[in-house]
């Protein structure tokens, strides 16, 4: 049966339909890698990160709606005074998004210091979160004190754990031997940066929720 017009049309419309014969599939500027990952195109890694973010969004949306529902139940909600250091932490985190962006745009030589600075800022953020916890504890507010404080610790811990995963990713990008990998360090840095910016945005959202909800 000769290929029909509809077959041709389908191939044209296939768009995403494979390209396993093409060198170094889409996304991510992978020109320095001959052949690329022919069997697993680069864009697969970007798909993976985006899907991961979707799953994480659902997790935090469940926590957010729990927050809203629990607050609306009325009787025992007491405002949790938010430690002012959280503002400082937020600025640090936003700064780290800037530095990671700058790192990606730089050539190899300048990449390392900006990447390292991002890691430092990230660790500073986490440290600042722990300080916030200590300050709250000093004020007598613990995980089980009241629902508002429960959510504060829960949301900051959940974000912090995911964020720590992001820091681990930054270390991984910096120290793994990328010559023996299916993707380049540049691509890995791009992937880590997407996750990093998302963690930044997520914190801004959670901070706004905690501030407005208090």
């Amino acid at each position, binding site marked *: 049966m000769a290929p029909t017009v509809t*077959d041709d049309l389908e191939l044209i419309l296939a768009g995403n339909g*494979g390209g*396993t014969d093409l060198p170094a599939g889409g996304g991510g500027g992978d020109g320095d890698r*001959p052949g690329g990952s022919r069997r697993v195109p680069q864009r*697969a890694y970007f798909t993976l990160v985006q899907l991961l973010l979707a*799953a994480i*969004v659902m997790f935090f949306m469940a926590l957010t709606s729990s927050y809203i529902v629990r607050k609306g139940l009325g009787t025992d909600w007491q405002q949790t005074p938010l430690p002012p250091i959280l503002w400082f932490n937020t600025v640090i985190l936003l700064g780290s998004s800037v530095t990671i962006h700058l790192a990606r745009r730089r050539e190899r030589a300048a990449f390392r210091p900006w990447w390292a600075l991002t890691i430092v800022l990230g660790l500073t953020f986490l440290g600042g979160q722990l300080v916030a916890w200590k300050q709250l504890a000093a004020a007598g507010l613990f*995980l089980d004190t009241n629902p508002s404080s429960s959510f504060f610790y829960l949301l900051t811990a959940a974000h912090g754990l995911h964020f720590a995963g992001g820091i681990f990713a930054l270390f991984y990008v910096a120290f793994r031997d990328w010559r023996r990998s299916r993707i380049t360090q540049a691509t890995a840095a791009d992937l880590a940066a997407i996750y990093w910016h998302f963690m930044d945005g997520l914190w801004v959202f959670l901070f706004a929720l905690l501030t407005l909800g208090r």
Partner: protein
Amino acid sequence: MVTDAEGGGHVHSAPTGFIRKYIFSLDHKVIGIQYLLLALFSVFLGMALSLLMRVHLAWPTWKIPFMGGVMKPEDYLALVTMHGSIMVFMVLTTAPQSGFGNYFLPIQIGAEDMAFPVLNMLSFWTTFVSLVVMASAFFVPEGAPISGWTAYVPLSAVGEQAGPGQGAGQTLWVIGVAIFCAASLMGALNFITTLVDLRAKGMSLMRLPLTCWAWFVTAILGLLAFGVLLAACVLLLLDRTAGTSFFIPGGLVFTDQVLISHKGGSPLLWQHLFWFFGHPEVYIAILPGMGVASHLLSTFARKPVFGYKAMVGAICGIGFLGFCVWGHHMFVSGMSPYSAFAFSLLTMTIGVPSAIKTFNWLGTLWGGRIQFTASMMFALGFVSLFVTGGLSGLFLAQPTLDLYFHDTYFVVAHFHLIMGVAAIFGIFAAMYFWYPKMFGHMLNEGLGKVHFWLTFVGVYAIFMPMHYLGIAGHERRYADTTGVNYLKPLQPVHVFITIAAIFTIAAQLIFLFNFLHSLKWGKKAADNPWNATTLEWAVSSPPPFDNFGGKHMQVYRGAYEFGVAGHAEDFIPQYAEPEKVSQAH
């Protein structure tokens, strides 16, 4: 040999050594079989638990040997909880999707393996760990939890003072489920990425076999739903161990203690979170079976799928609507009748794509030259049971009727027919179809047909009478109703159901024997024993380690080219090159 360092070539090289080949394998085919074996173990464990339940229900005064005499009500509830949890999580969520999907998705789309083999391996072993954690609840001093697979709070949240099994047993359950969520998320990530990015040349979305569409939408459901369950489990764990009050309300009294440390929590919040996950979960259980049914009905009727595009739309519609109907599990929770109306309407709307699929299955069969293989019979059985089980769902979708039916055997009948039978038939159909490809030997067809008929008759005998019990007002999750005046006359129905259950469970041993015996002594399988059209039949049985022996597969047509006019054979495989096909005239 092309290695990773050279940047091109294989996703992973051929494994050597026993551990790499069979234990910590990166090969999606091995991982798929590992999932199937986990599901096989779990289904027999789950059946054993249900057998104990059924024996107690029929003869409540009998002494059960290893349960220390007559079964206590709390022991019965522990069986209910673990039977449900193991069957839903370890059988229905793993076998159709992670088992068959893992094995056949990459091959059907022409890929060498899943996009991320290491993540794939991790997802299986994480599932394994979650099973161990959950099952260990049986072995702690107070035993397994008694709050049902739905773990409603406050029973599941307050800890050991709530009852036997509610201490360590419940905590292990929650942790086990949380681990399972992580494992499922890992699997979903892999499935979707593989489908989106690793399809072979010519394999456009509308040429995908319907099995792949089903695995695709199922993976999306899993990606979006399991995060919510994970959040719920975290909150529950904190309530249990850290003194928080997300779910536990104030003023609860347990025997003589008042729980003053908790106040203001919402048990309804747990229900919302759980069922927001729980409803997509049941579609995760059934969608792959629907994909398999479409695939098999077409293959064995030697006809294209009737209305392929509508089938794709229906799968997507069911998936989307599945997120909109969770409230129908909560009609009696005190919700506003306006909310109930909305959920009811949306639930009935799911009937539309479901009906489209059912009628298209019938349309696929109409005028076909049907080959009644064991696989086909299970596929036909799937359609029958899906209709039967689905119809009772329409009754339950009416809030006014559900006021009566909720927590009765009518619900038990509904979800067992749909999940415990139709989905299982989907698994059996897939097994009989793909066993030759996976293991290189044919299953015995005669035994398969005996297995089918005994099971088909058996499951109807078990679950149809339960509708009657429900209409008569028989509540579920009750260990012994012989002391209840208006339920006492129904006891003979329980005995009938139990005898049917014993008979049906025994019939599964035929399958088990067939499965094990044919591994070595079954007739050797050719590459394409069913004259099917999809890519897995292009390669040897079992396939080479990289699926296609290094060849870059190309797809030239849709997946259901059966009975094409003017063509010598009654099928054209997806991978047959056009010039070669025209020469076949």
